[in-house]
């Protein structure tokens, strides 16, 4: 089983869209996939299965069991009961509820509470091939649980200046978790909401290529109104518009993730070929081409 956390301490960078798209594409390949929604706003949950009145539904069951001391005696099936099917075959959801927002206070002072999700995922065992965790945009108990449970972290970053500052904070947080767990956590930075018509997007992308070249997914996810349409329709983007531009980028990323997972690889640095992806790592001809286009885009920033 492979586990990826989709996280960034900044909101509005495309975390939920990225998480849903990747989970949907994994399921599309016939892989039993679980999307864990850890964001108390429950955007992914509402998107995929609608609202839920039971505050203790979904992932809250796992945390509640830990709080009341019953987790150790729960059979694996009880952990799986927190997962529900979605409209897409092979895609399940462990939903979030607003009650997650109070977890920080309820679990105050409990050492080791950052490992609850790790245990839950382990107890789910062979039920799923892949697990995708959609994180809240704040550093706290929930995000630490996600980072601890993840084998690899996917960091969507909006291609704009403030989002890059958020990425620096996220990187520091990851380093802290790495030190605490005494393991490296491979990561891939995914440029999102890229608008090639604006100077701000182009500048941000170039800075990402300069500062995060070794972990940067080279193909930015473009602004794509079809993603918004898919959310309105309640369908994962790959189901709503399989040929969409943004879906195409996610599809190639998923191919890469699966390939690396099946090879047992843990390298974070994505290295797709230039021909296929128009690779734009710093110093490459394509990067130079981007710099050239900055001048042309200057008047539109």
């Amino acid at each position, binding site marked *: *089983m492979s*586990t990826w956390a989709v996280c960034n301490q900044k909101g509005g960078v495309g975390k939920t869209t990225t998480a849903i798209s990747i989970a949907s594409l994994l399921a599309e390949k016939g892989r039993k996939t679980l999307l864990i929604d850890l964001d108390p706003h429950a955007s992914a949950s509402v998107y995929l299965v609608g609202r839920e009145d039971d505050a203790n539904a979904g992932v809250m069951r796992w945390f509640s069991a830990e709080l009341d*001391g019953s*987790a*150790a*005696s*729960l*059979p694996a099936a009880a952990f799986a009961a927190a997962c529900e099917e979605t409209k897409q075959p092979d895609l399940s959801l462990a939903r979030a509820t607003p009650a997650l927002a109070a977890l920080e206070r309820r679990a105050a002072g409990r*050492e*080791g*509470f*950052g*490992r609850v999700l*790790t245990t839950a*995922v*382990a*107890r789910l*065992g062979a039920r799923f091939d892949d697990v995708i965790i959609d994180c809240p945009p704040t*550093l706290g*108990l929930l995000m*630490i*649980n996600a980072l*601890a449970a993840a*084998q690899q972290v996917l960091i969507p970053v909006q291609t704009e200046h403030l989002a890059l500052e958020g990425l620096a904070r996220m990187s*520091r*947080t990851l*380093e*802290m*978790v*790495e*030190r*605490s*767990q*005494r*393991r*490296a956590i491979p990561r891939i930075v995914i440029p999102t909401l890229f608008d090639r018509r604006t100077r701000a997007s182009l500048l941000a992308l170039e800075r990402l290529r300069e500062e995060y070249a070794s972990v940067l997914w080279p193909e930015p996810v473009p602004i794509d109104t079809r993603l918004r349409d898919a959310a309105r329709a309640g369908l994962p983007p790959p189901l709503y518009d399989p040929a969409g531009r943004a879906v195409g980028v996610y599809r190639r990323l998923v191919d890469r993730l699966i390939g690396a997972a099946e090879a047992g690889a*843990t390298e974070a640095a994505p290295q797709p070929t230039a021909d296929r992806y128009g690779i734009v790592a710093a110093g490459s001809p394509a990067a130079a081409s981007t710099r050239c286009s900055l001048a042309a885009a200057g008047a539109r920033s």
Partner: protein
Amino acid sequence: MTVTAPPLDASLEAYIGALLAPREPDVEPSTDVSAEQSSVDVRAVAPSAAGVESSADVLELKLVKAAGLVFALPAGETADADDAACGAARIIDLAAVATGRPSAAVPATRLALIDHPGVLIAVDSCEGLVEVPSERVRWRTAGGARPWLAGMLDDPRAAVVSVRHLVEEG
């Protein structure tokens, strides 16, 4: 991976460290730690008579690391695995059993089990031997979800492993 943290992040790092600290056993230990009252067979944890060099109430434990956690194995039940044994044995990845994820250590350190020929335990590293009075181990009192977790030791902080249950589960 950076080794030192900026001072401003120190409190945040402490917070994260506490959240990710090894957890207490899932079941509260009995106040009476006799083997008869524990559903985990303490004799499966305690070193065999041949493996104990001091009194019967003192456990000699081998501390090992796996998945960033510290485990204590009965020293008298384990031995360093030689290369020949590595080729033919069933290997139990302690990290995988404990966390669900395989060990990241390459190559892993392997320990042979004296009472289980042909079975090896893979860990990230061996940290040495300690002797602790049996009563300092907080034994688990019910089967729980992880029968291999026999108890917890606070100083040094480690999860005490029942080799027999580990072999049965792993």
